[in-house]
């Protein structure tokens, strides 16, 4: 069949992308979608969740890690070392399971509740559009725990 004319180049309403309509003799209409545009649309749709730093997701991972490792334990000088290591390790394992193209830095501070003042600050020189951070403050009766996760896109 020989196309009479490329009548219409417009938008597909179901899945937005540019389409081409060709009218043929015998009233056949063929809709052609450029392959590259189709793939690009699907990739864009799928990749947004896979390449952004989602704060809520990371926050949940951190809270779960702290609860699992420390829970209701009281501050003990002999065990704190092991706790900080376990918390950061747990967080990092769960974060790497997300399978995102990110490098992660996890920082954990545990302080005994003694009336002392503690101030922490952080600043970052990165790409604002792709990178992100999440800080969680947690406490129980005898200690404060502050965990920061920084995610940098590769």
């Amino acid at each position: 069949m020989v196309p009479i004319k490329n009548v219409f180049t417009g938008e597909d309403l179901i899945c937005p992308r540019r389409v081409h309509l060709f009218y043929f003799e015998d009233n056949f209409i063929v809709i052609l979608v450029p392959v590259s545009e189709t793939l690009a649309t699907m990739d864009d749709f799928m990749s947004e969740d896979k390449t952004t730093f989602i704060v809520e997701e990371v926050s949940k991972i951190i809270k779960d890690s702290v609860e699992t490792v420390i829970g209701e334990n009281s501050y003990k000088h002999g065990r704190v070392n092991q706790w900080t290591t376990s918390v950061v390790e747990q967080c990092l394992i769960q974060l790497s399971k997300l399978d995102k193209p990110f490098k992660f830095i996890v920082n954990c501070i545990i302080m005994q509740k003694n009336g002392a003042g503690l101030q922490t600050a952080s600043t970052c020189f990165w790409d604002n559009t792709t990178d992100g951070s999440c800080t969680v403050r947690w406490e129980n009766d005898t200690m404060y725990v502050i965990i920061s996760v920084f995610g940098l896109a590769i």
Partner: protein
Amino acid sequence: MEEYQNGSEGSFNSEEAENVVKEGIESVLGGDDYSQTHVNKWTAAVVERCLTQLVKLNKPYKYIVTCSVMQKTGAGLHTANSCYWDTSMDGSCTVRWENRTMYCVVSVFAVCIA
């Protein structure tokens, strides 16, 4: 020969970063005593100072600088960090500083831009 040179230039130079950070802390906290009203300003100033000096080194890195200042009252403080990155190119450096009334811990993480 070429490979050796590339290795030393490509990886993170932690001594250089340590010097930058020590200077940064000294200039901000110097001879002050812990003061609850000022500590907020101090931590912000320390991280800002360290970051601007690190950026001036003009290296292809993204930086994260964290600073903790704690009053000396006998309380215990523990910090730990763990990183999921490229161990050949990325690096970190932690500086512990103290004076009569407070402790200051500053960590710098440098992640290479590909």
